[in-house]
């Protein structure tokens, strides 16, 4: 059925990584500049949707062999685990901890448990958005 979308597919191969990197950037920068897990997740979803448009569903599934419902579940567990982890240290549920570290290459950086929670958000957004799109797109 598909016509030969050489230009689209070639461009996608390049653009996908640009979008993906941008989404990762947005995700990591979220604590200081606009962005965060939600937008980052949505942008990653956008990149994958671009792949889906350029190639077909099966190809993308081969390229990204994840079960996205499992991704959603992992995201939820990560978020809940971060929140619940505080109990172990005898502080109220959902208390975050952070500190500043001197890392090679990055310099002085803060490491924050909120980042873990945000990765949970990121995974849930990607997982459920792709689940929705795949299941609707895969239905005839």
């Amino acid at each position, binding site marked *: 059925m598909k016509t030969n979308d050489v230009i689209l597919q070639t461009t996608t191969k390049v653009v996908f990584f640009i979008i993906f990197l941008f989404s990762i950037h947005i995700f990591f920068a*979220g*604590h200081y500049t606009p962005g965060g897990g939600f937008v980052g997740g949505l942008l990653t979803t956008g990149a994958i949707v671009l792949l889906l448009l350029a190639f077909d569903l099966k190809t993308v599934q081969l390229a990204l062999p994840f079960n996205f419902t499992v991704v959603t579940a992992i995201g939820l567990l990560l978020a809940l685990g971060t929140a619940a982890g505080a109990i172990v240290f005898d502080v109220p549920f959902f208390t975050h901890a952070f500190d500043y570290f001197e890392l090679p290459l990055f310099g002085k950086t803060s490491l924050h448990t909120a980042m873990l929670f945000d990765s*949970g958000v990121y995974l849930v957004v990607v997982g459920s958005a792709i689940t929705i799109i795949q299941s609707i797109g895969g239905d005839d």
Partner: protein
Amino acid sequence: MYGRRIFLEFVLLIFLPLVFAILIPFAYKYVKGIHTGWFVLLVPLLLFGYYLSFIPLTMDGGHAISEIKWIPSLGITFTSYIDGLSLLFTLLITGIGSLVVLYSIFYMDKHKEDLGSFYVYLLLFMTAMLGVVQSDNTMTLYLFWELTSISSFLLIGYWYTRDRSRFGALKSMMITVFGGLMMLGGFILLSMMGDSFSIRELIAQAPELVNQPYFTLALVLILLGAFTKSAQFPFYIWLPDAMEAPTPVSAYLHSATMVKAGIYLVARFTPIFGTSSTWIWLVTGIGLLTLFWGSFFAVKQTDLKAILAFSTVSQLGLIMSLLGAGAISYHTTDAMFAFATYAAIFHLINHATFKGGLFMIAGIIDHETGTRDIRKLGGLMSLMPLSFTVALIGSLSMAGLPPFNGFLSKEMFLDSMVALQHFELFQFDTWGILFPIIAWIASVFTFTYSLYFVLKTFLGKGKVDLLPKRPHEAPIGMLLSPLVLASLVLVIFFIPNLVGKWIIKPAVMAVQPTLYASPSDIKIHVSAWHGFDSVALWLTVAIVITGTLLYLTIPKWQPLYRLQPAKLSLNEAYDALMRLGEKGMNRLSRVYMTGRLRTYLLYMFAFLSVTVIAVLFMKDAFMIDMNSFAAISLYGVLNAVILLLSVGFVVFSRSRLAAIIALGGVGYSVALFFVIFKAPDLALTQLVIETVSVALFLLAFKHLPALNTHGETTKNKVVNLIISLSVGVMVTLVALSSHSQKLIPSISQYYKDTVATEAGGGNIVNVILVDYRGFDTLFEIAVLAIAGIAVLGMIRLRVSSRKETTDENK
């Protein structure tokens, strides 16, 4: 005041039948040889014997209390309070109960009937009834009261395969439960006014209660409970239909005990409400009306049990009216009215004896001839001499002839009614003359139906050969109970003052505790002979003469009943009410529950906008504070124009694709607004979300039907327009008003100050989302996950169910 030491918490005895009821199914199942009734018989006999031992205590005006706490924090206790009145009813319940159980052993077939259920229900009823008459706590009184309704429901519907049984059970349930609920309302009002659930404490406060605002309401509600239970006009209609129950049940519940629960209630609450004129008028008036109505319509009936049912209704009315008249003694020293209460209690006992016997005889006739239709019966006197004797004694007592106990109480009744017209308060002097007249006419009809009942059945030629069964005398066991009751009828006639001293006077004292210090203060001596100057005597003579004449001419005047159209009867009214309840409500709900989502949205939005706008104006909350507005930028105006154009396009678009694209336009201009109002995170999210959702819309596009008008008429369009405009106006008004009235400062300063130090971040929005208020985010991602799984599930399940149906088709 304990007359003697009571070694047992006798409140527990109330529950003896209930506990015994648990054992009955085992006895029924495993002891096949012996009729289950013999085991049951033990319970009422034991209780009767035990309660007899209270007579010496109450005779001196004493009482006994036994209590177990049930819900102490609410003041609800099971309190057994035995004074003269409770004891009288307790003895009736256990005494007649024993006789009825004995009778039922011979009446209910061991092999054909489900005796297990029968006796379980009966014992359940016994507990309920004992609880009603002994409870001092209004809440437990109500509990037992409803238990009598339920057990009565079960007993009436005992032959549940018959339509008429189920109808009668349901009808009695509806009416008595209605009354019960009203009564509960009255009890709650009373306990609010008196701050106690205890009847004794309420009685002690009676003088203050009279002036409370809800006094009359409580009075009417409690009377509704009593009137429905005691089958007073116009609630008597359930009683004739309850005759579908097995005859022992009719004899027990519907003549001797349950229907007297209402009488008990009225008597018990007389010390509280008795001083009110409303009470006197209602109880006396309704009682007399019921007396007349029941006796008048009894002659119309052709079923033996129906005659007795109407007769019960009428006699209950008589007792009720006497109780009402007795309450007058709070206002006058005329001894005649103290007499009335005495007469009420006396007649209560008498009625229980003769009516119980008559019901049992009706059951025997049914049992031995196969029919209860009076038109088919006749000439049974020589075939069933013992039954005839009992029936004659019962009927003549019911008619009020000597030498039977009914005569004594009927005389006292007539005396009281004659006395009523001399009473000068509450307009009794103008209307009082009606009371003796109605009472007299009703007594004439009572006399007539009593003759009608006994003579039509036992005298005459009869068509013995046409009866379904060959009639013969009943087994002696079956006759034993009616014989005992009939002999009581005679015995009470000869020793009325002994019964009075032992039982009636203590009961009268309980009904009017403020008037007497001890039962011996009640100076009443009942005698059969008052001398020729007694008014009641001449009234009785007149009753006998007129009644006999009426009986002889029954065929001539019976067509009179046909004058009343069937459509206008109370039963018809009840049926119509039920039909209205079922069909009318159905129709009503069908009118507004159209099943169309559009209609429901219409209701919701209309309600929302109307109430909110009304509240805004009523509270005068509407205001615009121009000073709080920020300056309007050019970009803002331009963007707003774009937004409005897109919205207009969405609403008026005729193509779905165009609508979706315009919706995207709306989303992007909202994102632009976020940019203008300096919310980069929101702008980013809005932009991406809008893109994804438009993509999803387009993905689903090919499955969607063409955008059509769904048969919108102009009227619909106008209504929609009005509703949507009003919702828009409402939201705008609320937004403007709430913006103009900020009561407290925003908390955002705290976030600004602590975002770097406390949370180690720079982006306040993100830090709020993941740190300050991460809880919200946690559950929002849960929502997202659920949505994803739900879409997956919806699509997958649809596919698999489609597969299943095609498999089935193959």
